[in-house]
Each structure stands twice: as structure tokens, then as C-alpha cells.
């Protein structure tokens, strides 16, 4: 693959890939590494038909494998990353409220079934139903119901987390005065 082709692919797809992966993994550095790996694999191809679907399929595949690694290993990496952050970079100022929203969103997303989660994240990156079907080995006809289910579950879980949090904030988490 020529370098100008690589650059074209990169400029088009790196940002959406990183966003997709960040949402899935919760860690941007990790997401960027995986995105790099996706492009390195793309380099081995002579050409890509249906580029977007191919790239996202590979990304999904890689993340699926990542998720299988021991949770301990990932936590270790996270701890390292956090330590790095403390010493190297100051994180952007995030209000407590925004941090809480992020945490709830993550929990809500994690409550989805794996396939539903991937389908929804791919849709958010603008992939068409055909591309989603190709990336996830679904039939095109089932993408709609998959997304419907995913969206409903995400919203309902988020809502219940919100309500629970509000209840706790109001009543201190206990049922008595």
C-alpha cells in the first residue's frame, strides 16, 4: 500500500476508529494503540473494498481479543497509566457531574450484550446497516432490531442509574430519616 493511500485512509478513519475504541475500552491511549494495529494490518492488504466496514471489523476483532485478556492485566495497565498521568500530564478539569455521567454511561454500556454493544457503537460512527452487518456477521435485516434493543437497554439502564444516584444523593442511601 502506498504511503499516500495510507495517509488518506488514516485521515479519514483514524478519528472515528479511536472514538469507537475509546468508547469501548474506556482508555484513549489504549484505543490509539489498537487503531494503530488496525492500520498496520490494513497495510498488509493489497486493497480494501468496503474500507470502513473492513477497518471497523478488524478493530472490533482486536478489541474482542483484548477483552479476553485477564482483567488483572488490564487493571495493571490502568494503574500504570494513572500513575503516568499524575506525573506527566494534568487531566483536563472535569466537573464531578461530568465524571459521574461518564461512569454511568460506562456502566450502562457494559450492561449490553456484546453484539448489541458493538452494533450500537458502530452505528454511532455512521456505519450503514450493511456495513454493520458485514462487520458483525449479522444479517442486514436483524440490524434494526439489534439497535432497537441496544438503545432501549442503554437508555433504560442509564435512567435507572440516574434515578438511583439521585435517590442516594437525596436520602443518603438509607430508608430511614
Amino acid at each position, binding site marked *: 500500500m*502506498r*504511503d499516500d493511500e*495510507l495517509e488518506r485512509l*488514516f*485521515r479519514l478513519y*483514524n478519528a472515528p476508529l479511536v472514538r469507537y475504541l*475509546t*468508547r469501548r475500552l*474506556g482508555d*484513549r*491511549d489504549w484505543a*490509539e494503540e489498537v*487503531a494503530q494495529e488496525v492500520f*498496520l494490518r490494513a497495510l498488509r*492488504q*493489497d*486493497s480494501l473494498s468496503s474500507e470502513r466496514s*473492513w477497518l471497523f*471489523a*478488524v478493530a*472490533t*476483532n482486536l478489541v*474482542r481479543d483484548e*477483552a479476553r485478556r485477564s482483567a488483572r492485566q488490564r487493571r495493571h495497565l490502568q494503574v500504570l497509566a494513572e500513575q*503516568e*498521568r499524575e506525573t*506527566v*500530564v494534568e487531566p483536563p478539569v*472535569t466537573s464531578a457531574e*461530568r*465524571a459521574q*455521567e*461518564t461512569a454511568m*454511561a*460506562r456502566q*450502562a*454500556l457494559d450492561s449490553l450484550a*456484546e*453484539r448489541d454493544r*458493538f452494533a*450500537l*457503537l458502530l452505528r*454511532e460512527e455512521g456505519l*450503514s*446497516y450493511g456495513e454493520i452487518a*458485514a*462487520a*458483525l*456477521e449479522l444479517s442486514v435485516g*436483524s*440490524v*434494526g*432490531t439489534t*439497535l*432497537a434493543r441496544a*438503545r*432501549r437497554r*442503554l*437508555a433504560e439502564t*442509564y435512567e435507572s442509574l440516574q434515578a438511583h444516584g439521585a435517590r442516594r444523593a437525596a436520602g443518603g442511601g438509607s430508608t430511614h430519616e
Partner: protein
Amino acid sequence: MSERIEHLDEGTVHAWLDGALAPDESARVEVHAAACPACAALVAEARGLVAASSRILASLDDVPAGVIPGTSGTADQLAILRARRAEQARRWWRDPRYAAAASVVFMAGALGIYWNASRPITAEPVPSASAVSEQALPAATAPVDPTAAPAAGATSAAEQRQAVAPPSRAPAAPTLDTGVELKAVTPLPPPAPVVANEAAPRIEQAAKLADAQRDSGVAVGAATSARREAAPRAAFDALRQDSTRVGASDARARSVAAPQAAMSAGLRLRLSDPEPCFVMQMVQRPGTPLGAWPDTIRLTSEISPVESDPAWFRAEAVGAARDTVSLYWRPVDSVTVEVRRTLIVDGGALRFRRDGQLPDVERLANVWAALARVCR
């Protein structure tokens, strides 16, 4: 005169909102939603869900980054990518794929020499790839004949399939594929000293092709497809070589106790005809009930159409389920293949391993293990 109204289902509504419906169907939905209050409410709800989901997911973008200064942003990432690409091209021989190929060929050769030279069968297991160790596959250290095939005939257990195989198998003469080969993509421990002479030129040839491909940036189409097609054949050969050499020492087989696990669902794996049969041990990861898998799986040398990873090839269901199931397989190492129903989501995988070691059922808490006999 009352029409039968087809109300909208959720999936259709979302597909409509996402612009995924064909024009005529889209028009139908629009017309119906305008006329039917119940479905209009459904549409309104769906709109809300679509918007809410986007909003919720957007808050996941709020993640700190840039731990290492100068690595975030497209320009930086592109520079890093280019550097990695250049690095890879320079050090092709360290690329895991080639290292694995070299290792596998050397090991297969080494094993062959071993079997031919020393008759007594103390099962020296083929070193398994580190990737396999994550599975609770039994460490094959007990003195067990790697092919339980003939031994099975001696057991009393009612393993029906074992009766099918002839007690002594004449190994078929392997026809070695002499094309360019790239084998298992799993990195293996450092290769043993070169034993098989034919290995070296193959690796060199493979490397030269890949080098040419990279440097010129031009698709060396024929070579590439030959390389990719050669990979499953090479995997077949590796498996076949092992089995035929081991088969040659069938006469010395010792009896082996039948597996305790009564999970003999009889899942069979066979290579493209006509391949000799050899005993495969199936270890299944949890996630998919065994019933969802076809009864017999045949490996082909066809590249997977998804092409999400060049290492995956198509497998086929043999029998009734043939047209409805798509399967993929890849060699994990010289004695193990993995079969999946899908490459993307985790639907569970089957791993077949060619050795006769019976699983220690007690240790395999989460997996089902069974002996599957592959028959001619």
C-alpha cells in the same frame, strides 16, 4: 371492509429512523405512522431512544488522553504509524508470523525425525504455543500414546465412533505442499535447531515475497494469494505429517482409558477430503451450547470472505446445516486448530488438538472436552 393493519415493529422503526429502509418500505412506514396513533407513539419513543443513546455515548468521549506528550492528534499518530511501518519492513524476520512459520516448520521437522528415529512411544508432546496455554488444555506429560485411535479399540467404553476406525491404520503418504508457506500466526518459542532442510528455502522465499510486496508497494497478486492459500494447506500438512508419522507406530499403542466426560457429542472435525483421520481432542470454550454446532466440520483452504484477518479460512458444516452456518477456522499451532462461528462477537470457539492425551475432567471446570474421531 376492515383492512388488516400491520403495525410497525421496533426494528423497522429504528431502521426507518436510521435511513436504512428501501424507498418503498420507507414510504409505507411513513404513511402508516401518520395514520396510526399507536405506531406514531412508537416512532416518537424510538426517536427519543436514538437521541438519548447518542447523548449517553457521547459522555464516554470524555476520557483523558495524552499520557505521553506528543502522541495524540492525527499528525502525531500518523507519524508513529509510519515509523512502525518502516520498522516492520526492516525487521521482517522478527515479525511473529514469519517467526511462527519458521518455528512450526522446524518443529514439525524435528518431531518427524524424532518419531522415525526412536520407536518406543513416550509421548513427547509437541510444544504448544503460548497462546494455547490460556486454555485449560491438559499438559501432555503422561506416557500416553498420542493417538488414542487404535487404543480406543481396546477400551470397553461405549465410544461408538471409536469402533468405526480400523484398528491399524496405514498412514497415507503425505503429499507435501511445496509452495510458499506461511503457517500458524501464533508466536511460538524460539525454533529448535534446523532439522528439516526444506524449511529454510521456503521461509526465505516467503520473506522475499513479502519484502518485495512491501517495498514496491505493488500488489504481488499471484504471490500474495498463493501465500495465503498455501497457509491452510501448510497447516494441513503439519497436522497430517504428525498424524501419519504417529500412525506408523500404531502397533505399539497402549490402551487408554475412555474419557470420563460423557459429552461425546460426536463432533467431528475433518480436513478436506481425502485426508487421513486422526484423533482430535475437542476443547470448547463456554459461550455456545454444543447443540448450536454442526455435527461435522470440514476445513477448507478458502480464505475467509470477511478478511478481517488474513489468518482465517472458511470451514464448512457437513450435512443438513450446511447452508445456514458459516464457519471459520485457523491453525493455532502445529497441532491445534480453532473453529469459530463468527469472527467478531464472542460466540464461543471450538479448538481441536491433535494429541491423544485425555483431558483431566476435574481440571476443566468450564470447558467440555470430548474425543472426536475424524474418519475417512
